[in-house]
């Protein structure tokens, strides 16, 4: 399903669409940066003191002044803002107050872990959802009811609670998996499952509904009339239709996973963006917060553009619009 198969003119239109979309994405990124910058300025308390580890650190006035100068906090807000944007443009995210290192390098350290976690969770959620959807639509009231039930419950599970129960059962109880995220793959199991379950609930519902729609659609009938087996109808036709909306949701799913990562990474003591964000937020580490937010937003935006593009390519009906 690539553009060259589409009728003449579509590649051009697609490029155009992509261009417009990316421009929009850049704008959003800028807006996010701006919003974050000013929002964080609303926080009570002197950033200089925050840098010096809170009022407890007995920082002398000279020290405070020094810090203000060092971080340009003595400049008027507008200047600081422009400076921040300028540095941003050059990819420099500044220096973390609380961790005293370059935010860029810090995030570079933290990003892969979280991305791995998110990617794995997303795929696991997909597999679970697909399995559940296909099983619960094989006909019969019981599977359907059970499927629907599982989905709703899963979607209602708070991450922190799943995490706790999983640790309780599989670490403290059975001792199968480490309760904290260690280097080995074993350490990933519980966090991934924790993140995947609720997501699978949402995706599962979507998939099941669209799968049912597809199975009842005329093209399924004509496929059967062609001599296609039920399995064939599912594999060749229905599953793609079930997958499409779920693909479109990947952007949202990512956001959902990041929100979850804040909790999960804290509970499983797993280094990553989520945990970094939480510490940064409590430490009022402005550059770090901005950094994390920007990275997350950027990832989110890129992902949405990509998934939209993917769905457009996969589904000609979207191009018509």
């Amino acid at each position, binding site marked *: 399903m690539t553009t060259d198969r589409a009728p003449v003119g579509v590649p051009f239109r697609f490029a155009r669409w992509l261009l417009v979309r990316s421009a929009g994405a850049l704008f959003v990124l800028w807006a996010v940066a701006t*919003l974050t910058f000013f929002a964080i300025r609303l926080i009570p308390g002197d950033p200089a003191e925050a840098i010096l580890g809170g009022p407890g650190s007995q920082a002398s006035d000279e020290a405070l002044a020094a810090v203000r100068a060092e971080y340009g906090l003595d400049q008027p807000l507008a200047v600081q803002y422009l400076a921040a944007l300028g540095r941003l443009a050059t990819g420099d995210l500044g220096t973390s107050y609380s961790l005293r290192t370059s935010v860029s390098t810090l995030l570079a350290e933290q990003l892969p872990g979280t991305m791995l976690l998110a990617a794995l969770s997303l795929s696991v959620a997909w597999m679970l959802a697909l399995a559940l959807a296909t099983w619960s639509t094989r006909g019969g009231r019981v599977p359907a009811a059970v499927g629907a039930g599982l989905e709703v419950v899963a979607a*209602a*599970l708070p991450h922190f609670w799943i995490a706790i129960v999983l640790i309780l059962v599989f670490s403290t109880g059975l001792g199968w998996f480490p309760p904290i995220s260690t280097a080995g793959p074993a350490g990933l199991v519980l966090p991934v499952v924790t993140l995947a379950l609720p997501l699978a609930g*949402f995706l599962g519902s979507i998939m099941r509904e669209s799968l049912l729609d597809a199975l009842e659609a005329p093209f399924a009938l004509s496929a059967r009339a062609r001599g296609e087996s039920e399995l064939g109808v599912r594999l060749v036709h229905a599953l793609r239709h079930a997958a499409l909306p779920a693909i479109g949701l990947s952007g949202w799913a990512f956001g959902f996973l990041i929100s979850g990562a804040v*909790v999960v990474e804290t509970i499983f003591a797993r280094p990553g963006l989520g945990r970094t964000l*939480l510490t940064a937020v409590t430490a*009022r580490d402005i550059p770090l917060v901005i950094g994390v937010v920007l990275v997350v937003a950027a990832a989110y935006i890129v992902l949405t553009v990509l998934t939209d593009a993917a769905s457009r390519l996969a589904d000609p009906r979207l191009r018509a619009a």
Partner: protein
Amino acid sequence: MSDLEVSTRIARSATSRRAGTRRSATVGEVVAALVIVFLLLSALLPGAIAPLDPLAIRPLEAFSPPSPGSWFGTDESGRDIFSRVVHGTASSLLIGVSATAIGLGLGLILGTAAGMLGPVVDFSVNRMLEVLFAFPGLLLALFFIVIFGPGVVTATIAVGISTAPGYARIIRGQLVSIRRSAYVEAATVLGRSRWQILYRHILPNTLAPIFVLGTLGVGQAIVWAASLSYLGLGAVPPAAEWGAMLAAGRTYISTAWWLTFFPGLFIVLTATAITVLGRRLQQRVREQG
């Protein structure tokens, strides 16, 4: 996209398939209804269900496991967990509902502005929503809390705000589709003024599903609010709020599981029940139009 939009989408496609068909309530829906009734009872007159004082401490009976005497056991200060959970219902529901109300309110303002005040407003509101969507739900909430400090109220508002974009987009979509609908056109042909149309057709048809939208949202709102309390940014102990209870009990997980298990169970039950009913209601509303 927001959790909410996803949920509504699910319900929508579910209806489009069974369009018109009035199906009778499923077992799940009956159970959900019962759960809701129980929750409402606990919220309105907790004393009747759990006579014990949720704040009364009995240090020497701390950590006693579930027993006929106290069904859910006692916590680290010997408080009866069952009564705490029951008495916590009111606050948890209140948080969920008011957060949803806030989100819905903001969503309504933004959505209506975008849907009714012409292309310029529409464009800018949409951009704004895109920006807000770039912050995943909890991110937005955390943000708000950093600025205004932790606490039940801020947590509630935070959750409300973080759900607002979702509502806004749905409401806008609703408005636009109705404004383009054939019956609005028919009204124009009959010579109705914009205000007559707005008042007689657009608003009623937009508002009807919104209430349902809310019920779908409450479940998720409760979960998010609880998450915030769990991170220590929401309600604080000894308040009998489910998230806070979980957070407090977390420390003793390896020796006293019941401290965390039951509050969590109630969160899940509530969210599930509300969602199930929400979907059902939504299908109802859609079947009618």
